[in-house]
């Protein structure tokens, strides 16, 4: 069975910022008795318990499901969105990854379109607005045909699922040197463009979502592929190529009211 848990001392440098407009700074903390079986967020829980005990303000951070699916957690750890492990969210990162005495820097997502709310919490409502601009198939409740009336080839369904696995965490934009949201937008456009149900609104969707993305102040894609490396669901940058094709195709073929 597993060895008795060793205990580590971890030095943290954490971004503290009282509110959106306030100046921020890195603060240092030392945490004793960190178990290797602890998740990274459980370590932050301990830090916060200590801060509350000392009458200080605990560190604000977004988290919810703690199993890598809700997309709430959003930390840049030692310069990497979601930390050092491939294909994981911060909540799935465990302290066994670190050694006794390590120093770890923790920062919020950095992107103009994701303003800081407090400490490590940012405002990602830009993604919701992009979705509202066209990230859907217009099907009134009750108007759907039998689910098997429209066949979807298994391979296409699988590709659509690969893209649909995006959890909307924003790591792509946080990791991108241009703070581009192309991976997020392309994943949604690809998911729906690959399915027969998504065809009727295909052109308008690509154009509307790209425009909405630009309006939110996200940067352009210049093929760094940092987004794919940071993505906890390993969404492929192939989707960005698909988005570019969709956008070009729509720009050429669609009528002006699309």
């Amino acid at each position, binding site marked *: 069975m597993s060895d008795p848990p060793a205990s580590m001392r971890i030095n943290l440098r954490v971004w503290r910022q009282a509110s959106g407009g306030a100046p921020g700074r890195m603060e240092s903390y030392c945490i004793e008795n960190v178990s290797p079986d602890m998740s990274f967020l459980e370590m932050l829980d301990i830090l916060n318990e200590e801060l509350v005990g000392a009458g200080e303000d605990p560190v604000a951070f977004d988290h919810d499901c703690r*199993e*890598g*699916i809700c997309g709430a957690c959003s930390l840049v750890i030692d310069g990497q969105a979601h930390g050092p492990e491939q294909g994981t969210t911060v909540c799935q990162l465990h302290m066994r990854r670190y050694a006794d005495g390590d120093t770890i820097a923790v920062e919020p997502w950095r992107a103009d379109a994701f303003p800081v709310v407090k400490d490590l919490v940012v405002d990602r409502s830009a993604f919701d607005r992009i979705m509202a601009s066209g990230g859907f198939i217009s*099907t009134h*409740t*009750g108007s759907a045909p039998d689910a098997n009336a429209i066949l979807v*080839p*298994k391979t296409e369904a699988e590709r659509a699922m690969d893209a649909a696995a995006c959890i909307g965490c924003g790591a792509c934009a946080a990791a991108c040197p241009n703070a581009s949201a192309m991976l997020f937008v392309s994943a949604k456009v690809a998911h729906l463009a690959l399915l027969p149900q*998504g065809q009727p609104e295909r052109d308008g969707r690509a154009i509307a979502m790209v425009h909405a993305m630009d309006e939110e102040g996200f940067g352009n894609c210049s093929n760094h592929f940092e987004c794919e490396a940071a993505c906890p669901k390993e969404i492929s940058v192939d989707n960005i190529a698909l988005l570019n094709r969709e956008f070009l195709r729509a720009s050429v073929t669609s009528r002006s009211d699309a």
Partner: protein
Amino acid sequence: MATEQSNGTHAALDARCPAGPIEGRWDKRRFDVKLVNPANKRKFHVLVVGTGLAGSSAAASLAELGYEVTTVCIQDSPRRAHSIAAQGGINAAKNYPNDGDSIYRLFYDTVKGGDFRARESNVYRLAQVSNTIIDQCAAQGVPFAREYGGVLANRSFGGAQVSRTFYARGQTGQQLLLGAYSALMRQVGAGRVKLFPRREMLELVTVDGIARGIICRNLVSGAYERYAADAVLLCTGGYGNVFYLSTNAKACNVTAAWRAHRRGAFFANPCFTQIHPTCIPVAGEHQAKLTLMSESLRNDGRVWVPKSSGDSRRAADIPDAERDYYLERRYPSFGNLVPRDVASRAAKERCDEGYGVGSSGKAVFLDFRDAIKRDGENAVRQRYGNLFQMYEKITAEDPYQVPMRIYPAVHYTMGGLWVNYDLETTVPGLFALGEANFSDHGANRLGASALMQGLADGYFIAPYTVGGHFAGRKIEPISTDHPAFGEVERDAVERTDRLLGVGGRRSADTFHRALGQIMWEGCGMARNEAGLKQAVESIRALRGEFWEDLRVAGHRQEFNQNLEHAGRVADFLEFAEVFAADALGRRESCGGHFREESQTEDNEARRDDENFCYAAAWEHRGEGAEPAMHKEALQFEYVPLTQRSYK
């Protein structure tokens, strides 16, 4: 106060189920509900609290109908509601595999699986609309698993004898929620839904006994906000986090439902909790959250413990003859696929007897050795790859090489706000949808039925029945300037100030953990009178300590997660007592509620239909007063009352 009716049901608890053959009841109800003139719909304002499957689908569907809709959610985006974490699938009676499924069979299985503590009419309707849900979701672009010919794939799930579960890899909840969220965002984009994320409902506002709005705390600014409406829909999920450790997301809480309860909504069957058999065991004191491993794993994994107590050999070194495949031994016909409550209790029984594995002894093996040998590692990887990967990330063990260690954990709550057939609570104009209500799963929920129920309520039931409220009652226009909003807002602010003003030494989290310990010990998988009485005492004592020794950081007019948590723990501490009282009063075993005093000679649950064939609905009777329990008698006209047997 109204009294008991001749059938044993409290007068306020008239479920208003239509009469007649069960197949026609929903049609009848839909016909009888008065319609709102299309031109008038925009004059009615619906407030939807919560944006999980039930809330998103209801908000989108009501806006499509033309109502003015406002929706609030606790998360930073509606897409993050906890429905997203559901893994396994969603049931429907499509009978695409041609294996004998039907609406009637899904209805029958759900009533029986719920151990005869759900309302037949509601469950039948759920089975009826199940097929339309799949149609709706497929049309929205939910990427369900497909066969090579392009049709939808199905699997058997959670012990069902037919393959009626639709799924999208191990992420069905996520994909269904993204479908409902996209429908919601379409309405937001069109200006027909106003969306307010990062808002927490702290109070229900009633005027003349009718729900007319809520008070929220803006979690970013700390401001208290008033929302007025003509109907309020609570789609706020379950209360599993009363146990502290559960598979629920950290923000899941009872506050919205509890606050509504204190304003007049009866709370039904709070003790009906589902303990899911396949979760990753607790690793240490630091643990803040438990992780579920999908039940689908039991399709191929075999559950066992060593035959000799304290056997510390590696799993691979224990020969078959020295392994106890206890589910296959006790339940030869269902084996590893017995329902959740049965599997959970069997695991606890083995561990309590000293046969548990792992450093804590609180775990059993879920072994894929034979499946890998039979089908090959690739086939197993295709089916469960993401789950195996999730397990390895958390435990640092490779389940292709060594068996998983699993243990039961709190997962879902069947209890919730009492609702009638229209999903309306005992407060007129206040509806409860999804896990927040109590109606469809009885004492035990079947796998892949939570998603079905949330979407049924939101897409296909509430949009009709809420209209009945508007068309059937005189509803005066209201604004947030009404004095009722001021009063209730003052209550909410005062409560927050009380939390901040205690000025003690202990954090909300330590109280929450202590409460979880009390609940797990006294109100967990097996309950008895002495333990439950002790739990009530302990909860009261802990609540006393909470209000004397709590320390909350910061202020209320700021982003303050510590304060949010403290408020939720305060409500859990009140709610827990009703939970324990409910478990104490129900001196029978049924579904997830196992009373040690009520078992058969071979330690199986013994239901007592003579005395307990009812839903228990609790009424709040004021601060410090004992709550009153009222009964809604349950009739079974279609599914004969039988003891469940999975032998």
